[in-house]
Every structure is written in C-alpha cells, then in structure tokens.
C-alpha cells in the first residue's frame, strides 16, 4: 500500500532521531549543570510538542464528528501526532524531578511569606501533581489508543461499525479534552505563578494547541501536496481553501480568548489576577506581546481573509509557518515570564530541549506515518465528501 513517506521522509526520520538523541543528551547535561534554567526549558519543549499532539487529538475528534472534506487529507498527520502521546508521557517524567526549580509551592521561603499559597498546599503538592499528571496522560492515551485502533479497523473493513465507534467516542472526547487540560494547565502552567488564577486560561491553552497543530498539519500537507499518493483523493485548491478557513477561525478564536482574559483582568484590576500580566509587560516582554499579537493574529488574520491566499497552497503554507513560529514563542511566553519576569529571558537550554524532545517526537511521528496508507480507506463518508 502506498504511503506518504518517501525517501526524503525516511532520511528525515533518521536525522530527527539523531537530533533527538543528541538533544536529550544535552538535556541530561543541562539537568546536571544548570537545573534552574534547564527545567523551564524542558517544560517549554515538552509542552510545545504535547500541544501539537493534543491539538491534533482535538482536531481529529472534531473531524470524526463533522466529517468535513478538509480532514481526509490531513487525518494521517493528525493520527500520527496523536500516536506519540505515550512517548510524551514517558518524556514528562523528568519534570517531576524539577518541581523545586519550577514551582513557588515547592519553595519554603515563598510559602512562608504567602498565606494564600499556604491555603492551597492541600491541592498543590508533589503527590497530587504526580497523580493528576498520570491520570490526565492515561485518559489521553486511552482515547488515542481507541481512535487509532478503530481507524486501522476502518481501513480493513467495509463495515460502518469502526466509523460509528470513532464518532461515538469523539463527542464525549471533545468534552474530556478541555476538562483534563484544565487540571493539567493549573498544575503545570498556572501554578508557576504564586497566587494567580484565571478560569479562561485552560480553554486559551486548548485553542492555542489546536491552532498550533492545525498550522503544523497545513505545513506538512503543503509538502505532501505534490505527492502522487494524495493526488487523486484531494482536490488541492478545495482542501487548502477549507483548511485555510479553519485556520482563520482558530487564529480569531485564539485572539478572542487572549483578549477576553485581558479584558476581564483589566476590568477587575485585582492584585491576584493582574500578576500574570505584570510579569509579561515588563521590559522586553511587552515586545513579545506585540510580536504575538502581530504574527499569531493580526497579519495571518488579514491574509487569511483573502480567497487567493487560501487557494494557493504555497502561500497558505507561509501563513501557517508564520503562525507555527509565533506559537513556539507563545508557549515560551506562557511559561518563562512567570519565573523570569524582570527582563526578556531566553536560554540555550530551551533550544536544546526543543530539539531533543522535538527530534524524538518527529522520529516517532514519521515512523507512525509510514505504517499507514496515505489516506483513510473505506470511510463511508469519504465518497460523499470528495467532489467529482
């Protein structure tokens, strides 16, 4: 059976694996030499690639529910990203050893000075953190397993049963994803700030993940667009037009949520709510805010309003690349200023952790990609969705 992966991708897999192994070796060095800088970087690298996988999971379930034409051509990319979740669960383990470097609720002097934080210690503690992390990963992996298993069954049978099962899981799955992500976001990211809380934060993270994952699969699809395996199944212009519309919707939704949280915080003006923003507008961090506004929303928004931009995949791919790069900055901006609010802070360890986790992740992604046929076979809704 044909596969998207050709000789180039096979070489890419070996290169990614090499980069990943070297990067992870660098991570070990970082852990020993500079644990303070390293764990922030590692959390960033991990959360970025976890975001791609979870965003892909949410997009995959959205597609199972809606069976839109945009999804058939990218479904294998989404499924391959989802299948890396067990790997990401293993790669999360080092974070458990960095809790004192990362979180104020592990810092005795901060706890002693902060009554609010003391009252939260019954929830924010090491066993709770580890157990909740294990549970959310288990839920994600179980959902991913079932979706991948049924997808493989769908390829092998003409029965509609696997398709029906995938749709049945996807409805509740799209509710489970933001709920589990709420717990994960509170533990992993929100508790980086000592008193701060926001009820909008988790959904903001979810939409950011879906935006990043969508930009990622658009980039891959533009690379695969000329491949013969995809050729007869997808109409390039139609697919890119529809998926471009989806990208527009997600960058608007991202901006809407980011602004919604800012407006509520601005209107309330309460000390425990504004600390997150105060840490992100000092010195050069404010220019990072401007960068994110421009390249995660403003520029892509106006470009994606134009029909020709969406119908020419080379152009759409450059918009997706812009969003993808901005999303990397977004994840760093979500994490790093909480620990280093005074000045803009970047460390080489972030690059090393990004390449290490990213390399291993990409190798696993490509390996999963080549195992499956390039497009879904026997999907009963596919024939309807493909225009003649």
């Amino acid at each position, binding site marked *: 059976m044909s596969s998207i992966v050709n000789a180039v991708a096979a070489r890419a897999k070996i290169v990614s694996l090499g980069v990943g192994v070297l990067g992870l070796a660098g991570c070990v060095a970082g852990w020993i030499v500079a644990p303070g800088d390293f764990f922030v970087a590692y959390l960033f690298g991990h959360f970025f690639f976890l975001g791609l996988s979870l965003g892909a999971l949410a997009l995959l379930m959205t597609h199972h529910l809606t069976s839109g034409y945009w999804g058939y051509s990218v479904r294998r990319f989404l499924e391959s990203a989802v299948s890396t979740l067990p790997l990401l669960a293993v790669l999360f383990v080092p974070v458990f050893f960095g809790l004192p470097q990362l979180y104020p609720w592990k810092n005795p002097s901060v706890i002693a000075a902060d009554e609010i934080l003391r009252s939260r210690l019954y929830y924010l503690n090491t066993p709770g953190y580890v157990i909740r992390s294990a549970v959310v990963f288990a839920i994600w992996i179980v959902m991913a397993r079932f979706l991948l298993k049924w997808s493989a069954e769908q390829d092998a049978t003409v029965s509609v049963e696997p398709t029906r099962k995938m749709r049945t899981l996807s409805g509740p799955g799209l509710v489970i994803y933001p709920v589990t992500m709420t717990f994960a976001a509170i533990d992993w990211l929100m508790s980086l700030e000592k008193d701060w809380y926001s009820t909008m934060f988790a959904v903001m993270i979810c939409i950011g993940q879906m935006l990043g994952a969508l930009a990622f699969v658009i980039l891959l699809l533009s690379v695969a667009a000329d491949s013969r395996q995809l050729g007869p199944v997808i109409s390039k212009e139609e697919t890119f037009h529809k998926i471009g519309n989806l990208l527009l919707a997600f960058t608007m939704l991202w901006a809407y949520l980011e*602004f919604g949280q*800012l*407006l509520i915080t*601005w209107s309330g003006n309460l000390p425990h709510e504004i600390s997150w923003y105060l840490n992100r507008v000092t010195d050069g961090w404010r220019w990072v805010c401007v960068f994110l506004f421009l390249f995660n929303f403003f520029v892509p928004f106006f470009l994606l309003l134009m029909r020709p931009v969406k119908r020419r995949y080379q152009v759409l791919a450059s918009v997706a690349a812009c969003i993808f790069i901005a999303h990397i900055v977004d994840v760093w901006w979500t994490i790093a200023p909480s620990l280093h609010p005074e000045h803009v802070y970047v460390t080489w360890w972030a690059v090393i952790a990004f390449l290490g986790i990213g390399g291993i992740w990409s190798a696993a992604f490509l390996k999963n990609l080549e195992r499956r046929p390039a497009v879904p076979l026997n999907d009963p809704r596919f024939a309807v969705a493909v225009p003649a």
Partner: protein
Amino acid sequence: MSETYGLLAEFSTPEALMHAAEEAYAAGFRQMDGYAPFPVEGLPEALGKKNRLPLLVLIGGIIGGLGAYFMEWYANAISYPINIGGRPTNSWPSFIPITFELTVLCAGLTAFFASFALNGLPRPHHPLFSIPEFDRASQDRFFLCIETKDPKFHPNETRAFLQQLNPVSITEVPE
C-alpha cells in the same frame, strides 16, 4: 418604432451562456449582462464585471472601527475625563469591544446598502420584462443581453455575431 435597449440571446445551458459571454467579451463588447436562474460560477468574471463590494465593505469596516475608537477616546480622554479605578483615561482594552462591534455594524450596513446601490435597486421596471421568453430566466433558460449603448453595437452585425453562438432564440428588446 421606439428605441432599442439591446439584443437578447437565449441559451439552454449555463455552459453555452459561459461560452457566449467569453466570446462576446473577446469580441470587445462591454455593455452587456448575463441572466441565469442560479449563480453561474465564473460568469461575472467572463462578462468583465468587477465586484467592488468587498473593497467598500472593508472601507466601511475601517471607518466604523476608527470612528468607534475615536468616539470613546474623545469622550473618555478629552471631553469628560474621569479617573476609573486608576486606569488611564485612554483605557484601550475597555474600548476594544465597542470598536469591534461598530466595525462589524458599519461593514454590515455598508454591505447591505452598497449591494442595493451597485445593483441599481430599487428598480420597479426593466426593459427585459417586456420579453415574454425572459420569464424563463428564473426557471431553466440562460440569457445574454448586449446593450445598444455599447460603442461596438450595430443592429445587424451584433445579431449576426450572436447568431453564430447558436442561441435558442434572439430577441430585440425595446427600450
């Protein structure tokens, strides 16, 4: 006999109308229009019709957005400044919702009124209504009308030109 509005050619398929529109445009006709029971993709472009609506809607939206922000800035920072919880008088995050709403409102109203204006509406009568066959433009026939105000229009030559496109019929439309 009264003035003539134009020559109306009747076709039975959208493809024939598309072909006729392309031929007529290539022959240099500009003052013409196509009529079909449903939107035929590509027909406006084939007839050389430019849609100015998107540009007008964009301008309407920008005016609405700038106007809204100016209104709030002027009211809160210049005309009647009040200290609200220590925030700056030019409190931009609070101004964004109204700016957004008025952008959408002005763009929407521009779209509504501009599409009326660009379509020449309201228009109680049109010369084509006097042609009995033209009723089928809303059912199953596709029409191309080349108007007499086109500088290249000539009663006999234009009729001969339309004839070689194999229409179902050609009708002279009185003014």
